[in-house]
């Protein structure tokens, strides 16, 4: 979590890259940019933001300061971005999908209205989830897993990183498509889920590939499928769930991370940022850095991000409806 001490450290660090004011002729940016991140320094969404903003600072000729405001699954980061936005168009944020798609449903009131208060800039990256089981279990492949889960109600207990988390909703979407019911055991971190699977307490879990793969290599876990539409570069041998074991060809459930602005931000500024970030994400070095922390670069237009927010809000909203109806 941050204080102005780390902020100053980040400031100094970025200043080094901001030596040449390449766009000094433009009025914007008139000062350092502040990018709000709803997770603590060192976490995966924070590292992602730092990977993107380092070259961004260089390109804009202004330092970019990361403001970590962790809490409520990333919602506090957005609240703080909105609360601290001035009319100088220098305040932005990065967010994972939850706070702008499902949070309003889960929390009732997030203190902001996604449609009215937030202007999408661009998607940065996506992350699929993998279905992990213990290597000691008899669950060998997706067919076998679905059969075991369908043997009786709640035959399979799975762990997630919390009620309403991406891992929870993905598992429920999976169960619904497979026509089975599974028992949800909420944890608070992938570390806990991993330990519980390895200890044989629970049977399975949908996890970030980066959290699960090391334990596959270590021989403690087995992965039965991945939720992306294509095999992931991180886990190339893992088969996609789509089209297998009775799942639809278009089955896809991904978490994502995007760059956002307060909705009053000048359209030209948003457009400039979309262009810069898209160019940054085209750099293979940046793509590799993102992949190391579990994110697949996925830039696009502001319009595309808006569509993704709308589509995901609807898809996950449907899943939440079914969970609540149970």
């Amino acid at each position, binding site marked *: 979590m*941050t*204080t102005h001490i780390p902020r100053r450290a980040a400031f100094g660090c970025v200043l080094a890259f901001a030596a040449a004011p390449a766009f000094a002729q433009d009025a914007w940016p008139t000062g350092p940019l502040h990018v709000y991140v709803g997770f603590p320094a060192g976490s995966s969404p924070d590292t992602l933001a730092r990977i993107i903003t380092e070259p961004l600072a260089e390109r804009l000729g202004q330092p970019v300061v990361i403001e970590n405001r962790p809490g*409520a699954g990333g919602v506090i980061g957005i609240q703080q971005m909105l609360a601290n936005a001035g009319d100088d168009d220098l305040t932005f944020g990065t967010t994972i999908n939850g706070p702008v798609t499902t949070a309003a449903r889960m929390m009732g009131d*997030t203190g902001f209205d996604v449609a009215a208060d937030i202007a999408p800039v661009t998607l940065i990256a996506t992350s699929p989830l993998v279905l992990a089981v213990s290597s000691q279990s008899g669950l060998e492949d997706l067919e076998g897993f679905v059969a075991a889960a369908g043997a009786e109600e709640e035959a399979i207990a799975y762990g997630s990183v919390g*009620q309403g988390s991406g891992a929870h909703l993905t598992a429920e979407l999976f169960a619904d498509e497979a026509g089975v019911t599974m028992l949800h*055991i909420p944890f608070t971190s992938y570390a*806990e889920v*991993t330990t519980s699977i390895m200890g044989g307490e629970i049977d399975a879990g949908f996890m970030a590939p980066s959290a699960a793969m090391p*334990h596959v290599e270590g021989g403690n876990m087995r992965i039965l499928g991945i939720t992306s539409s294509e095999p992931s570069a991180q886990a190339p041998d893992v088969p996609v769930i789509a089209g297998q074991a009775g799942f639809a060809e278009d089955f896809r459930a991904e978490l994502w991370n995007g760059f956002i602005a307060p909705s009053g931000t000048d359209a030209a500024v948003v457009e400039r940022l979309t262009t810069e970030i898209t160019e940054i994400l085209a750099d293979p070095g940046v793509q590799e850095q993102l992949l190391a922390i579990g994110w697949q670069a996925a830039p696009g237009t502001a319009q595309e991000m808006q569509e993704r927010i709308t589509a995901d809000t609807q898809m996950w909203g449907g899943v939440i409806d079914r969970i609540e109806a149970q």
Partner: protein
Amino acid sequence: MGTWEGLVTGLNFALQPGVLIFCLLGVLLGTFVGVLPGIGAMAAISLLLPITYYISAEAALIMLAGVYYGAQYGGAVASILMRLPGTPQSAVTALDGYPMARDGRAGAALFAAMVSSFAGSIIGIVVLVLLAGWLSRVAVAFGAADYAAMMVLGLVAASTIGSARPAKGFAMIVLGMLLGCIGTDVNSGAMRFTFGQTELLDGVNLVALAMGLFGVAEVIGNVRDPERQAVTEKIGFRQMAPTRDDLRRMVFPSLRGSGLGSFFGALPGTGSTLSSFLSYAMERRIARRPERFGHGAIEGVAGPEAANNSAAITAFVPTLTLGIPGDPIMALMLGALVIHGVQPGPMMLEARPEMFWGLVASFGIGNLLLLILNLPLIGVWVALLRIPFRWLYPAILIFICLGVYSVRGLTYDIVAVAGIGLAGYLLALARFNPALLLLGFVLGPLIETNLRRALLISRGDPMVFLERPISAAFVVAIAGLLLLSLVQWVRRRRRAIPAR
């Protein structure tokens, strides 16, 4: 690689100047943030993250680990001198450390804290080297039912701490547990007692609670007495050094504390907090004159300090053997490695043996550096107490605000600490012990989560607590402890009746 061979490799690695300097930097910063209550290891680690991008993965881990265990040393300072704990385990140190300081024995209290911290760390390192494999199997075998039973045992064992009236101690624990209910319910996602405030969704800020109940309450309590100084005369080395009696009293509590800390530290979650409280409770229970506790018993400083430091070392067991971080700070440390292309996991150590042994060797070196660094500082800290309270307290309040703000960067928490401080003052007037409130606050939600998780997994069958061997052992221990208390109570009543 054999243990001996590994240690030699590790020492060779950790003693390279290019690595040693980062170890020193880590423990220095750790001490610094430990002394400033509330600014925890998490803030310090995020401050150091940019540096880690430019050094090797091993050096980065050694540096960040230095912050982690270094902060445990510093935490004792503010608790002893000013009753200003930033963590629940430092709150335990304040129970007897602060009364010692008020008696003019701050030097002895700090000495006890530093030396037992060192002893605890060294024992923790030995346990880590010899028993890491066994401890990691225990950690994996621990299920939700086992955690729930273990924490209930912790609460029952610690409930007798620092209160003449058991009912008052019990009341504080329950109040702490109720405060712990605030926030999002892990199981249902429902928001409990948040009154629409998103700042409360993750619960009450622990740092604000600790510093409000102790620090702010203490400041309010002393407002009436602005000219007072804790120490009026210049203190020489003689008054500072512990007496022979002090040293004798420190030995066994330190050893017992280290044993508790080494075991509980390896279990992900609350090893450090739980073992500090258990160590204190244990020392009080076996002491010949338990009434000394709370009024400056050096055993009450030595035991818990040894416990939390050995716990800080064995907390690395799940990280190092399984590649699974035991707490959020450890997760951030591992996150720093990813930038170097090191994927945290069980294979990390096979691929890089110098990482495991280098880190273990750096624990020894780092703790030695901490001891050398901290012992001479005792004089400086004690001299601080000569400043009259009216000058000291405004500064303390500023540090409290800084510490609380550093956790999440929200001014909301500064307002909260003021309110909690006022409540803490009222509790102090009524002679309630706030340390127990903190214990209830930390353990309550964990007990609830694990209890409900265990019952979910067992599909509602409560027998799970007796069927699992680990949990059953804890349940037996809880029953034994309650029975023991009952027997003692009956005996006391019997003795009391003829006197009437």
